[in-house]
Each structure stands twice: as C-alpha cells, then as structure tokens.
C-alpha cells in the first residue's frame, strides 16, 4: 500500500474535524451538544496520532497505543458527563449551559 493522499491532506482533514468540534463546544447551548463537540475533538486527536504514526514511524505502533488511550479517556469522560447531566437535569429540569451560573465569581 502506498502513501497516496499525502501527510498534509490527512493532517488538514483531521484539523478540520478538530475545528468543527471546537465550534460546537463554543456555540452549543445544550450540554449534550457540548459533549458531542468534545467527542469530535477527541476523535480528531486519535486520528492525528494514527496518521503521524503511519507517515513518520511506520515500523512502530506507539501512535496506535496512544489512540487506544485517547479512546479510553473519551469513554471515561462520556460516562462522567452523562452522570453529571442526569443529576443536573434532576434538579433543574434543563441542561442549558447558559443558565448554569451558580459557580460564577
């Protein structure tokens, strides 16, 4: 197999995913929407690890191991986020982040 779409193509693709996820995190009002944005960003990070492993260190697998670590962290984060959303919803009947201002100042 050859390396036809060059490193730059892959890199720009994964950076686009990251930028789209960043936009989601900054612009969403629903907390679940923010979580979806964060998952997009984590996914692009994992993809980046694998891309650089493939193009810069093909005989090694360190990038693949890091990708599995990223996925494990993403899973842990999704579990905790879901638990927190359920609890917030129980007390406030909404997960709109623009109304969560108790911890300001």
């Amino acid at each position, binding site marked *: *197999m*050859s*390396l*036809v*779409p060059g*490193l730059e193509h892959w890199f720009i*693709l994964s*950076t*686009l*995913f*990251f*930028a*789209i*996820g*960043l*936009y*989601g*995190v*900054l*612009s*969403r*009002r629903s907390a*679940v929407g923010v*979580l*979806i*944005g964060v*998952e*997009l960003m984590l*996914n692009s990070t*994992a*993809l980046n690890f694998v*891309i650089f492993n*493939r193009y*810069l*260190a*093909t*005989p090694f*697998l360190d990038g*693949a*191991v890091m*990708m*599995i*670590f990223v*996925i494990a*962290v*993403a*899973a842990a984060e*999704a*579990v*905790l*986020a*879901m*638990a927190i*959303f*359920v*609890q917030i*919803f*129980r007390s406030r009947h909404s*997960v709109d982040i*623009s109304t969560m201002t108790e911890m300001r100042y």
Partner: protein
Amino acid sequence: MTTADWTVTLIFYLLGGIALIASIVAVASKRILRAAVGLAVTLACTAGFYVLLGYDFLAGVQLLVYVGGIVVLIVYAIMLTSSMEYFETRSPTQRRIIGAIVAAIFLVVTVAAFRASEFTVTAMTVPPSDIAAGVGRLLLDQSGAGYLLPFEVISLLLLASVLGGVVIARSPKAAAADASPDIHAPHGTQVEETS
C-alpha cells in the same frame, strides 16, 4: 499513479466529504438526536480512515468502543435528560460568530504551524501486519519503551470514572436510604421488638 492509488485517493475524498458533512450536522443541527447521529456517522467514517491507513485493528476498536459505546452513552444522555423533543434554542448569534472565528483561527494557525515544520516521511513501507499483537506487546512491555504504567493508570481511571458515575447519577432518595442507619444496632433492635 496506479489504479490502486486512484482508488485510495477516491475513497479518501469520498469518506472525507461524508465525514465532514456529518460532523457539521453534529455541531449545527438544532435537533440534538440528529446531532448524535451525525457524530456516529463521523466516527464510523473515521474507522474507514483507519482501514485506509492500514490499521484494521484500530478500526475495530473505533467501531466497538466509540460507535458502539460512547455514542450509545450519548443517546442515553439525550433520552435521560429528555432533550429529545427539546429543540435546542439557538445560541445568541454573537456567540456563534465568536465560536466560528475561534475555530477558523485555530485551523489557520495549526495548518500554518504544520507547513512551517519539517517532517521526514518514512519510506513507503506497509505497517506491521499483526497490529493487535504488537499493540498488546507494547502495552505490557515493562522496559522503558513500553506502556505498562500508563496502561495501569488508564485502567484505574476507568474504574474511578465508573464508580464516580454511579455515585453521581444515583437518585438522592437512594443515596439517603443508603446513608440511613438501617443496620444500626438500636434502630434494628427496636424493629425486632415491635415485630
């Protein structure tokens, strides 16, 4: 370019287009459940990218853990917070514009930094054929090159997050029932006496 090269390039752009459209749906859709479906499609396309790069094992991990686990968890979060029928009220235009500007600046700066740095692309070799075995050996390698310690730390992190999730998501009633002195001696003897 050979025919195989053309095929790989074609699949790359096809999958890339689908994944980009799906990720835009995931961040911009007003229906939150549709956004979750967009996320699932993006993650599935990413599994396709892993196959394209030659790491089939990682594609399997991606589908199993990400699409099968995390997306299902997010759908559960949507259902439990009943934001399913909840059309997200649009954020203020100002906030969306600021978000778009920050994302665009991030994209430009990162690509510029990438362009400015030198990378030595290795020779066009295929990746190791037994990726699962190689990853397993690396994870359990105790020498300096291995990842035994991070592996153990990650397992602790997962355990802690599962316990934390259970404790946080428990209903206040159940927590109060657990905290009340059911097995407390005076209370228990009283119950026995009355019965």
